[in-house]
Structures are given as structure tokens and as C-alpha cells.
């Protein structure tokens, strides 16, 4: 790959191609509006309907995607006209500021930038957030292609993985255990800027809580079992999910998800494995259908006699709703959720500490990994 200086910044060929692709896609949207004017048609745009009822399971990609139902936004109504106007302004920003000047902004910044747009300004941030999602759907490109940055820091990764990251200041080759501190390697917001070079991992373990992530690092779990640890930080960010998917599919390494044993954590697993309803248009980029749930399982609470808390009313409601959620429609989940409802208990990952600090790395995880046929 031949590095090329670009706009005062350093850009790789690949980055340039991606920007070009994004610019063409965005220009296409504007050209369509222009053509509609020229052909005496009221400007409009057809989009998939973004409601729960229009989410369906795609058997080929094994993720949840939008269905066939579409809705048309037309300048015949004030609402539709405003959306088209705002879309034109956002696209102009993305092309002229982001892509042509190699800059980027966050969703929050976009909302504030729009304050200068007079009647095209967004009334609240969810409106501008939705606009970016709309553009993702129309262009079939992720927002990272438009240089839209997430607000929060990406999660971290730790383990024997060597990669090359293209940064604004040049290419960096990093080993995610030997070249980083205990904090680990920070996953960049645009995972497409990462190229995997080498690894000796047998599996990837995605961990919900920082406490457990640190416990595994301290206990040397990654070295002992050739694991790459990814810290999910609760509901995982887009970049984290994209990273997991790429690791799984490009390097062919199995992914296991390790969370607390409560209904909210099962949803974290579901969004890693099957995609979230809110971003169903991105499921094919971000969901890892091969990911497996390692625990904490309700049956572990019984088998390992873990310290527990009582299920709250909300917990019970959430569990019941999962029983009818198509994403949990398997014998495994039905048995586990029913068991949890029967015992009325939930447990945190940290509950293993009650059995000794090494219990989770010496006993629980090895037993589960063996059971799952991963080691």
C-alpha cells in the first residue's frame, strides 16, 4: 500500500477509496432530488419502514434486518419537506466538511452545527441521530464512512493480536498485548481503518463488566488459554460489535460472550449475536451470529451455588418478554429463562469471587469452554 499525503493529512489508498465511495453515494441522494425537480416531480425518498413490525430474520445472514415494507417521505407534507431539506443540509456537511476536508464530527456536534441552518436546524438530537441512520439505510454505508464519530470511547481489546491501524498521523503496527498497557488496545471508531496482521488466538471472549475483564487480565487468562479479550462496557458500541464480527469472520476465531446472569445481559448478548432493532439496517455489518453465550447462565447459579439477588419486577417482566422475543426462540434459552423465573434469582459475573479469585479462570471458564467444545 502506497501512502499518499492528502489534504495536509496522511491517508491510505483504501481510505481514499472509501471516502470516494461515500461521496458518490451521498451525491446520488442529492442528484435524485435534483432530477425530481427537473422532471417536475415533488421531491421524495422511499425508505424501509423503521418499526418493530418491519424487522425480520434473514436466514442467509442469520441476523435481524428490515423487511419489505417501505414508506415514502414526500415534500407534499411539511414533515416530509422538512426532512428532505434537512437531509440536503446534512449531506452537504458530510460531503464538503467531512469527506472533502478529511474531518469528522460526533452526533452531538452535528446537532449543534445544525443550529446555524435556520429552518433546516434539528429540534432535538434524536432527530439528527435518526437522519444519520436514514443516510446509512439509503446509502447502505455505515456512518463511519461519512466520518461520523461515536460520542463515547470505543471499548478495549487485550490479547495476542497484531494489527495495523491507519491513523491521521500515519500507520501504526500494534500488538494488542505486548505494545499496550494494562488498559489494552482502544478500538477506533472506524474499525475499517484496522487491518489484522497476525494472531495465535483460539477464541475471543467478550466481557460485559470492566471488573471481570481486569480479573481475567490479572489472572493471565488470555495467555494461558490463547484468548483475545474484548471489553463490551455494557451495551456494546457499534465499533465494538463491528470489531467482533470482523475478528470472527476474517480470522475465523469463535466468539463467546460473558455477561451477568440477568435478562438485561442476555439482551447484550443478543445484540452482539443478532443485532439490535434500532440499527437493524446495520445488522449485516455488525452482528456476529456465530457468537455463543458462555454465561452467567441461570443453571450456573444452581450448579455453582452462586451468591444471588432476587429478581425485581422489571427483571421478571423483561424475562417474560424475552420468552416471546424471536431472538431467544430456542430450546436452550427457553429452558434457561424458565429456570431463572422458577428460582427467582439473578447473579453478577463478580459472584464467582465468592469462590476465590482464581475460581472463574481456573474452574468456571475452562469447564464451560470445554463443554462448548472450544478448548
Amino acid at each position, binding site marked *: 500500500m502506497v501512502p499518499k499525503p492528502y489534504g495536509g493529512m496522511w491517508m491510505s489508498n483504501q481510505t481514499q477509496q472509501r471516502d470516494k465511495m461515500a461521496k458518490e453515494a451521498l*451525491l446520488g441522494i*442529492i*442528484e435524485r*432530488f*435534483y432530477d425530481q*425537480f*427537473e422532471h*417536475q*416531480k*415533488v*421531491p421524495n425518498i422511499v425508505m424501509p419502514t423503521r418499526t418493530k413490525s418491519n424487522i425480520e430474520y434473514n436466514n442467509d445472514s442469520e441476523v435481524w434486518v428490515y423487511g419489505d415494507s417501505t414508506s415514502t417521505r414526500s*415534500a*407534499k*407534507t*411539511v414533515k416530509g*419537506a*422538512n426532512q*428532505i*431539506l434537512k437531509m*440536503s*443540509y446534512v*449531506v*452537504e456537511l458530510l*460531503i*464538503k466538511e467531512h469527506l472533502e476536508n478529511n474531518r469528522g464530527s460526533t452526533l452531538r456536534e452535528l446537532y449543534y452545527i445544525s443550529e446555524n441552518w435556520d*429552518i*433546516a436546524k434539528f429540534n432535538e438530537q434524536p432527530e439528527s441521530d435518526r437522519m444519520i441512520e436514514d443516510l446509512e439505510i439509503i446509502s447502505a454505508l455505515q456512518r463511519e464512512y461519512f466520518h461520523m464519530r461515536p460520542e463515547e470511547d470505543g471499548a478495549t481489546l487485550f490479547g495476542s493480536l497484531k494489527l495495523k491501524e491507519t491513523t491521521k498521523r500515519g500507520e501504526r503496527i500494534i500488538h494488542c498485548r505486548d505494545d499496550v498497557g494494562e488498559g489494552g488496545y482502544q478500538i477506533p471508531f472506524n474499525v475499517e481503518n484496522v487491518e489484522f496482521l497476525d494472531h495465535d488466538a483460539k477464541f475471543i471472549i467478550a466481557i460485559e463488566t470492566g471488573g471481570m475483564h481486569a480479573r481475567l487480565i490479572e489472572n493471565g487468562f488470555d495467555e494461558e488459554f490463547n484468548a483475545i479479550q474484548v471489553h463490551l462496557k455494557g451495551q456494546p458500541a457499534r465499533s465494538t460489535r463491528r470489531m467482533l464480527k470482523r475478528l470472527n469472520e476474517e480470522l475465523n476465531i469463535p466468539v463467546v460472550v460473558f455477561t451477568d446472569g440477568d435478562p438485561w445481559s442476555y439482551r447484550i448478548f443478543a445484540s452482539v449475536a443478532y443485532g439490535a432493532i434500532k440499527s437493524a439496517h446495520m445488522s449485516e455489518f455488525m452482528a456476529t451470529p456465530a457468537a455463543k453465550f458462555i454465561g452467567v447462565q441461570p443453571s450456573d447459579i444452581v450448579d455453582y451455588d452462586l451468591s444471588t439477588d432476587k429478581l425485581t419486577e422489571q427483571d421478571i417482566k423483561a424475562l417474560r418478554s424475552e420468552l416471546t422475543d424471536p431472538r431467544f426462540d430456542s430450546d436452550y434459552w427457553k429452558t434457561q429463562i424458565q429456570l431463572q423465573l422458577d428460582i427467582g434469582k439473578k447473579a453478577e459475573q463478580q459472584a464467582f469471587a465468592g469462590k476465590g479469585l482464581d475460581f472463574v479462570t481456573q474452574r468456571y471458564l475452562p469447564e464451560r469452554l470445554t463443554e462448548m467444545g472450544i478448548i
Partner: protein
Amino acid sequence: MAHPIAEELAKKQRAISIAEFFEKNRQILGFDSAPRSLLTAVKEGVDNSLDACEEAGILPDIMVSIENAGGENLGLIIEDNGPGIVKEQIPKTFAKLLYGSRFHAIKQSRGQQGIGISAAVLYSQLTTGRPTRIISKIDRDKPANYYELIINTSTNDPEILDEKEVDWDRTRGTRVELEMKASYVKGRRQSVLEYLKSTAIVNTHARFTLVEPDGNTIVFERAVDTIPEPAQEILPHPEGIELGTLIKMLRYTDRQKLAPFLRYSFSRIGLHTAEEICKAAHLDTESDPHNLQLEDAKKLIDVFKKVKVSAPPTDCLSPITESLIYKGLEKEYSVDFIATISRAASVHSGHPFLVEAGVAYGGSLGKEDRVNILRFANRVPLLYQQGGCAITHAIENIRWKNYSLNQPGGSIPAGPAVFMVHVASTHIPFTSESKDAVADVPEIMAEVELALKDVGRKLKTFLSKQQHLSKRREKEEIIKKILPRIAEKVSQVLDKPTPDITPIVAKVMGNLLVQRSVSKNGDGYQVEIDIRNYGDATFAIKLHDTHQYSVRDAQPEPKIISMGRDTDHTWKLNLKAGDKETIKYHLPFVSEEEANALPGMIVEGVDEGLVNGAKAVRGYVDE
């Protein structure tokens, strides 16, 4: 000689009768709970005051004051500017149950409801042991009379505890002061405040002042200063007469013969009909009505039902009228729209009645709530048993979706609206003695439904007009503000000339679009004019294309009028919704510059704002 034992017993029986009668009938009399007792006492007092003022031709000014009197007791003062009560009548009016003449009169009156103010006096003395204090003054120059009264519960006669002449700084009027076990409630339909508000709506000529226990004063101001026409008294109609009443009439009549008795005691019975009735009942026309037996009376009632007697006169009813209902609703609610209807009178089982209705919509009324229903019988608000009332049932029978209102569960509709229904009659059929709900009499329900549908239609028209206006406003916002900005922005991004949005404006607005294009053709230019109707109505227009060039091979042929230097080419066109017409002609010997600088066209027969691409003039176009 000792009194016979039976007489003693009878006395005892009477001694308990009035208090016991009250205890047994508290619910019917309206004194079954602390909040309701207060409301009933207020109602009795206010009804009396309104009736008295109306009869005397005085604009009522009524004050209701409620104060805490310690413990569970409240003090209630009702004061009016009415004609006052003559001294001798005061004790009986307030301290004798069932005293008064209105029970015998056949006319539309408030007093059909409730047992009278004396019931409140009795309730007051039973719960607090205190007498009722009355001041009444009948003339500016006369002193006022002051009384402290209780009812003797054994004889049902007034007992005067104090009586004197006092100075009172009013010109005339009556003031009643009671103390009773009661409670003052707010925030619900069955409250003094809501009762007065409703009463103010149907009595727009009256001013009401409410002083609440915390000293807060609320004034319901009058909206008009004319007193409603008093209702006329009429003779009973045979169809609606009850056996008991007939027996009483027979016994107390001054007539000595049956036929004249029938003729002059009932409405709609003439000489011929009276004879026909006697014959059908096998009774002598000459017989003395006082001597008729129960069996004879029964026979008469049967015959009344069979003989054809024309319907009773209906001019005895006193409607509130459409304009006063409008004013009443207008002054008590801040709304966007009001419609009212006063229907013609009709008859239910011999009793004339009429129905009036009003709807108030929008403004500050709750959008999500059920519609607020105000029920009135002879100008008196009905506050209890809404669910059991013919008025409510009639509302539920109507499919309000047809009138642009939601109707969740098919019952009372929802939306920012108040429904007001007034039933006026010489005899209101109530569901029970407590007189809280009108019975489901088919004739009345049919009239209520018709009245509500009438105001419902007016409401629907208003709402669809509103909707049309807001749609038009919305469209204007699109074409004036948003569309030009989109056109500007997309051309900026693409670095292209700003597109012409005229055709799209026509489409969005549902207008007529006129477009002219020119293209080089042989020795000159070919002109094409497209006229397209994007609206949903037919446009009958004349299109004027006026310029200095001569036209060749025009299709269709225009009418040509020379106008000095210029020539007016006119086409008469009739375009239905969605139609498109094309006019073509050739301009020989014209340069490109000239062809592109043709003056603007004029469309005649259309309002400005309905055409894009040409100037509109109203003019006249025959079809």
C-alpha cells in the same frame, strides 16, 4: 270525656310521620350524603329565587355563601333580589312541608324537582337543632321581616321562635340562613360550583355569586338583561292524566255535569269529544262529576286512551332559545366553536316537550378526555345518575365518528367538547323519585338524538373547514419556505443552476399549471403550451396568449382579437381534475431571442393563487 283511643293513636302516628317520612326518603329527597345535602339545599333555594324573580319580572341576582360552622356543620346563606315574600306567607313557605301551589299547575316549572326549601329547613333542624333564619323585604319603603323558624314535626306546621321587623339595606329580596351537617366539595360534577356554572349557562339573564368557605368569591356574570318569557299554564291533556289526579279533579271541580267538566278541565276536548267520551264510557253526560265512583274514573281513563284527541298545545313551553344557549356556553367556556339548536315541540303521552342542545368545542377543553355532558330538565341541571339518563343513552346511540369525534368503546365520545342537552316539558318523566335522570321515553330520546345530530353536523362542518384551512396553511409553508430552500441547497451541493419549482408548486397546491416552451422549427419557432389541472375540481378557463406576432397552424384554433399593436389569442378550455391539454402553434420569422421573450400568459376565470405559470384574473367564463 276521654278522647277515643283511635284519635290518640292517629296523633302519635302523625307525630312521628314527618320526621320519619324524611328519614325514610332521604335519598329521594336528596339528603343522603353530606356533600349532596348541601347541593340539594342550594338547589332548592336557587330554584325558588329564580322562579320568584322570573314571575316578578326581575333580573335575578343570587348570592350563595357557604361557611364553616364548626365540626361537621356548614352555614349556608342564599340571598336574592326577588320580589320578597309577604309577612304572613313566610312561615308556611319555609316551615311547612309540601306547601305551595305549584304541584297542581300544569306547566313547565323548575319546581317539579325536589320537595322544596322546607325540606332543607327540616334537614337543618334535624342535624343541628338550629332554626332557619329568614329576612324578606317586599318594598323599598317597607321594613324587612325577620323570622326564626323550625318545623313542628308532629303537625307539619311552622313554629316561630322569633319574629321582628328589621332594617335591611336591600330594596327587596329574600335571605335564607341555614346551618346543617354537610360538606363542601370541589373538582367534580356533583358540586355547588359546577351546579352554579351549569345553572348560569341556562339562565343567562341571572347573575350568581358564590362565596366558598375559604372566602374565595366566584361570580357567574349574566350575559343578557332580558327575562325569559314565563311558561304558560295549560289544562291537562287527557292522554297524560293519571287516575289519582282525575279523581281529585272530579272531586274538587265546580262543574255540576260531566260533559262540561270534561270540556273545561282538559285541553283539546270540545263539545263533540266530551259527548263521545261519555258515550264510550257508558256515563251520562249530565251526571254530577262529584258522584262518580272509582270504577267510573277508571272507565274514563280507558276511554281517554282510545278516543282520538288532538295533541296538546305546545306553545306553553318556554325554550331557552338557540341564541341564549350560545351565550351561556360562550360565557362559561373559552372555546373555538359553539353550535346550538332549539327543536320544535312534540308530545310524549299527552305532555308537550321540546329538546334543545348545544355543543362547545376546542379552546381550553381537554383533548383526551371524554366529552363533558351537561343535562338539564326544565332549566335545572341534572347532576346525578348520568349513566342512567335518556340524554346519555341518546348520546351513546349516535355514531360520533360520522361527526369527526372519537368514540372509544362506542359509548360517550372523546374530544375537547361539551354537550349540553335541555329537555323542557310540562311533565318530565324521571327514572325515579329522586329526579336525577330522564327516563328512556322513545319520543324524547328520538328528539334528543335529532338535536345532537344537528349540532354534530354543524361541528363537523366547522372541523372540516378548520382542517382544510390548516392544510392550505401547511401547503403554503411548503411552497413559500421549504421547497425553494431544498431547490437552492441541492443545486448548491451539485453546483448546478437552481431548478424551476413552479410545476412542483402547482402539484403541491393542487393548482392549474400553465407552461409554454419554444423550439426552433423551420422558418421560425414552434410554441407548445401545456395546461395541466393538478386540483380536484374542474377548471373552466380562457387562456390568453397576447403578443405582437402572427400565429400559424394553431391547434386548436384560438379566437383572435386585435388589440392595436398586439393580438390576443384566446382558447376556451375545460379541464377536469387531472386533465392535461396542449396547445400548439407556429411563429414564423421569429428570432430565438424574440421567441424566448414572449410576454406572460393570462388565465381568465380562476382566483389568483390557483394558477401557476400564468397570471390569473377572475373575469367571467360561461361553461
